């Protein structure tokens, strides 16, 4: 059971919403679409579901071409970011509705709905209207409705984005368990790199309607195919700077340089360094100090985020502990250059140390 996109593209009024995309999505794991808002995650899901017709390419499910097939015939489930329930029906009827449409026997419906409500911890709410529930319970109802039928394809479009922190953690922990028992293709859209990493599976990084990278989630994080993929998969944003390799040195500017690995050819490169590899304190012998002006320092208790300008670029540092700085203060931050991506002028990844993403 696989969902295969073959060169699927979507153009609307001359605007390209999805560039021709090839993807093979397997069952039994999370297939994550990672990208910022307007990257095309929802459009891609609508194409997968059959809610929108692709303007080019074909969609195959289980070896069958389903490109023009109506969504009603496809056996799909979908959960949206907004809590979408039928406001005129009780929670029970909401969950039961796909089964009713499929003309399942009343006794079976009751059994299934109660089972699913138990799993989603909304058993006590079955007689209420969706509008009488909290946001988390509304989203649980929507998820119960999506999971109550044995769909072949489950599409989760940022299902946790509108929930408060605690509920989000809770549902995120439960989700892999709920999904694991099913033989279906699960697609999960999110804007948060950390969520993608927590859920594992495979990740497709989306940028402006284009899948820029696809593979096992941790691999995409540690070895992004290109600069765009690295940008998509970094929050706070990855630090980017231009460097030149000449001889045995990587040169950022006349003051800052560090030894190069022999694998790189001489020339211009763009480096990408994740914010947690830039720290106000020296952590490795090989760290390189860069001096700049603090722009903003945000302390969240366990972490400090420092925005600063150095040599014409903006940098972000994310470090453990409390490191207070004043705005406008001159300081030196330490860059762990052993955890640095090197991209060629075209943006392709040419070199990364093995641990670039992991630490």
């Amino acid at each position, binding site marked *: 059971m696989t969902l295969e996109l073959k060169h699927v593209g979507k153009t609307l009024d001359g605007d390209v919403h999805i560039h021709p995309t090839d993807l093979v999505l397997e069952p039994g794991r999370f297939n994550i679409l990672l990208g910022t808002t307007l990257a095309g995650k929802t459009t891609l899901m609508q194409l997968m579901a059959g809610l929108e017709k692709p303007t080019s390419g074909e969609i195959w499910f289980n070896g069958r071409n389903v490109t023009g097939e109506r969504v009603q015939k496809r056996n799909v489930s979908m959960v*949206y970011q907004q809590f979408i329930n039928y406001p*005129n029906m009780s929670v029970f009827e909401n969950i039961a509705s796909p089964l009713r449409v499929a003309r399942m026997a009343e006794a079976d419906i009751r059994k299934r709905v109660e089972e699913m409500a138990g799993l989603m911890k909304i058993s006590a709410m079955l007689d209420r209207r969706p509008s009488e529930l909290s946001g988390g319970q509304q989203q649980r109802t929507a998820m119960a409705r999506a999971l109550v039928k044995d769909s072949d394809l489950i599409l989760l479009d940022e299902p946790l984005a509108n929930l408060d922190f605690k509920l989000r953690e809770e549902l995120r922990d439960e989700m892999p368990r709920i999904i694991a028992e099913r033989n279906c293709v699960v697609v999960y859209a999110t804007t948060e790199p950390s969520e993608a990493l927590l859920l594992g599976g495979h990740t497709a990084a989306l940028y402006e309607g284009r899948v820029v990278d696809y593979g096992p989630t941790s691999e995409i994080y540690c070895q992004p195919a290109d600069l765009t993929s690295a940008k998509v998969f970094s929050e706070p944003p990855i630090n980017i700077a231009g460097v030149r390799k000449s001889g045995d040195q990587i040169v950022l500017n006349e003051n800052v340089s560090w030894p190069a690995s022999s694998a790189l050819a001489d020339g211009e490169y763009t480096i990408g360094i994740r914010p947690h590899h830039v720290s106000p304190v020296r952590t490795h012998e090989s760290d390189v100090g860069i001096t700049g002006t603090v722009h903003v320092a945000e302390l969240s208790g366990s972490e400090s985020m420092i925005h600063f300008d150095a040599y014409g670029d903006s940098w972000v540092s994310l470090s453990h502990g409390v490191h207070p700085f004043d705005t406008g203060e001159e300081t030196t931050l330490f860059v762990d250059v052993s955890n640095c991506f090197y991209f060629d002028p075209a943006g392709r990844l040419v070199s990364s140390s093995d641990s670039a993403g992991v630490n």
Partner: protein
Amino acid sequence: MKRASWLIPTIYIIFLMLPIYWLVSMSFKTTNEILGAFTLWPQNFTLENYYVIFTDPSWYMGYVNSIIYVIINTVLSVAVALPAAYAFSRYRFLGDKHLFFWLLTNRMAPAAVFALPFFQLYSAVGIFDTHLAVALAHTLFNIPLAVWILEGFMSGVPKQLDETAYVDGYSFWRFFIRIFIPTIAAGIGVAAFFCFMFSWVELLLAKTLTAVAAKPIAAAMTKTASSSGYELGLLAAAGTLTIIPGAIVIYFVRNYIAKGFALGRV
């Protein structure tokens, strides 16, 4: 300040209710009393006026006729406006915004402008002096209004609701009738209210397009005024009865009317 806080509302309510009170009080007076002396309340309380209205067919049929064409009009307007409003709220098509705006052209001129063409057209096709004639004429004004109101309410429902239903296996019509219409029930109520009210109070077209068989109550009232002198008590009773259907309808949609005036966009 505090002690006088009852004053303004009281003046306001008196101001508001005075014409209605005068009408109601007149309806319980005899015509002689109305013309003879200034009385704040009926001196010789009588139900004679109401008795006449409920027993004389030329009176009560006026109400029956009005109610028939108002109901035909309301049902027709809402039934036609529902799919139209859905199309405007959910689909993009060539010229949709212009069409949506120009829907209102029929409301840009007074109804009198359309009286003559309607009269001539309906006479030609043979539906002059029928309930349908008035109902159809009123849809010209009510359908655009209903489309505007319903479109506002429908646009307040996220498109994802439609998509969720399709994903669940609902066909379009099953979704539309079982889920969408109940979801915007308040909007339908408000649209129906505006159609009802327009059709109920509109006099000119209703009078022009009917003669005997479908004569509305408002036309009946204007005629009786000059038959055998003035029958002011009777007129007041008829007027009082005319307020009642409107009052009942307003009562049911009172919580949504503000939203209706804002065409559903509050």
